[in-house]
């Protein structure tokens, strides 16, 4: 019989992030798949009661909480301490948690202290002969492994967009407070704030329905023999505005800045998708002026519907990876697309 622990932390508003509700669905699926197993919830945050209330109807046998001002923000030392305390108190054999930036940092440390094994970027679960198996990608989304572990505790960090969002009624949850005494040494790091791009410069939108992937072709010489970087910027930003899209970029485009070539002013390494960038999840993706494996294969592994605009009909990276390949000049097409989107 497995003791399943679902872990989550509150966000800046004291609520659970969306990925936590997705991971709760995964935890319930595991509980259902492993007969006789129990589910405990563990919450970390400055005040976990509202978060506990929001999942009161999930069917957990108990809800454990580490709370207080020291646990309000993402700090490794205090988060590891909190997770360790909940892990010990729950006696969990399988621990499942959302792969937020906060938990991605702290979970491995807690795994070490709990003498647990850990698998991150879990993108699927299945049961074979009553044994839990998880799926995760290796070599930056190039091969998919299905694996299991005999050792316990086993920590699983689940990626976003994999499981459905848990839906259930709010209620008045009873939270059992777990003590996690924090020393001065554990407070050497102080979180002073969050730097967010201004609303106009916000080009990364994880919740967007569409991902626009911009390739290096935007800053290359066009048919008139000139570079039109400013025009490219306008087309891309207009599209992001009208389609409420998120922006990804090929590595080559981002790297151009440090190589002294024409650049798009709003583009940074944070936009990069692929081997050394992110692999975002969006329902739709449109790649423009891209050539290469990173944007088409690795960068949009988790994009459901994919289309590409490219002047090369034989682009081997788009063929077989995109649903539709438009052989056309992206400058002309995107100008027209934006015109149509602006009309509403």
């Amino acid at each position, binding site marked *: 019989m497995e003791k399943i622990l679902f872990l989550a932390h509150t966000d800046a508003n004291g609520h659970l992030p969306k990925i936590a509700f997705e991971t709760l669905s995964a935890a319930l699926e595991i509980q259902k798949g492993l007969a006789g197993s129990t589910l405990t919830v563990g919450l970390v945050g400055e005040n976990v009661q509202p978060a506990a209330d929001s999942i009161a109807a999930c069917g957990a046998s108990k809800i454990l909480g580490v709370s207080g001002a020291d646990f309000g923000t993402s700090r490794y030392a205090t988060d590891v301490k909190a997770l360790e305390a909940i892990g010990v108190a729950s006696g969990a054999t399988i621990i499942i948690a959302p792969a937020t930036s906060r938990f991605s*940092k702290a979970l491995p440390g807690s795994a070490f202290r709990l003498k647990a094994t850990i698998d991150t970027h879990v993108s699927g679960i299945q049961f074979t002969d009553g044994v839990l198996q998880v799926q995760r990608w290796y070599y930056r989304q190039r*091969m998919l492994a299905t694996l299991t572990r005999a050792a316990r505790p086993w920590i699983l960090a689940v990626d976003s967009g994999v499981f459905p969002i848990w839906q259930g009624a709010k209620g008045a949850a009873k939270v059992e407070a777990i003590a996690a005494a924090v020393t001065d040494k554990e407070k050497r790091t102080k979180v*002073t704030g969050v730097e967010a791009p201004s609303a106009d410069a916000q080009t990364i939108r994880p919740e967007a329905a569409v991902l626009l992937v911009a390739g290096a072709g935007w800053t290359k010489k066009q048919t008139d023999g000139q570079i039109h970087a400013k025009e490219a910027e306008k087309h891309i930003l207009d599209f992001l505005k009208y389609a409420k899209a998120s922006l990804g970029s090929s590595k080559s485009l981002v790297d151009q800045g440090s190589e002294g070539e024409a650049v798009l002013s709003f583009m940074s390494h944070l936009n990069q998708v692929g081997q050394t960038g992110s692999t975002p999840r969006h329902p739709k993706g449109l790649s423009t002026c891209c050539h290469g494996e990173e944007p088409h294969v690795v960068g949009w592994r988790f994009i459901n519907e994919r289309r590409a605009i490219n002047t090369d009909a034989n682009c081997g990276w788009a063929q077989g990876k995109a649903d539709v390949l438009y052989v056309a000049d992206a400058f002309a097409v995107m100008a027209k697309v934006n015109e149509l989107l602006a009309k509403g």
Partner: protein
Amino acid sequence: MTTAFHIVVCGSLVPDPLQTLEPIQGPTGPALKNEMMLPSVLDPWAGHSLFEASHLAKQNPGSKVTLISLGPKAKLQQLMMIIAQKVPFELVCLDGSASGFMDSREVAAALAGAIEKIPGLDKTKLLVFGGCSSASRDAGTTMQMIAEQLGISDVFLGADELKIQPDGSFRILERIEGGQYLVSTCAGAPAMIGWATGNLPEPPNNPQVGMTNMRTIMPALQKATPAALKTDAIRFASVELPKQQRQTRIVKDTPVEEIAKEIVTWIKG
């Protein structure tokens, strides 16, 4: 006030991203087809951390950089030929598998053990750098486990910027959700920083740096300690390439207006 650091960078090799990879079943678990023949590069995020380490050492006189690499000795030697000309460092080499299918706990234990054995290591000056995750296992767990084993409680992941303040404390930017940065300050060393891309370009090759590095690299390779990594922690049921191949519809010789309308309809659909 300047502070001298001992920056230990954990980084090893991964297959060149342009290579086609194919999984096979090896004697001890999954492996890559022709793994020993595949051209390798320094793991990209670990590479960024090495460049950041060098930059920081240059700004803080008296600092030194040690690169600690776990991988097959022969392949590490090839890798060092590529990176030795980039920045000054001393090498500590562990001879073992650099496969992404190894368990990070095993890798972390081997690396932390090797760090502990660095002669004259002063933990009060220690900064452990590495990539926020590797391009092979991509777990993002090894660095934190190293920190735990070394007793380091100030850990940062996905860092793009580290600034040393006049009082010796750090200001660190870590990537978080939505293209934002978490801003933190830390009282000082020891600390572990798992880097994202940082802000530095790849340094140009410098033959003089290469010659100086090679004087210590070759003996380090000869002295490489075998890393006994267990391979029984993970039971792989399968490792396979994604099968999905899309039937791409090619639209060409079509007016721009028509293409634009189709795209807009699709976006709104």
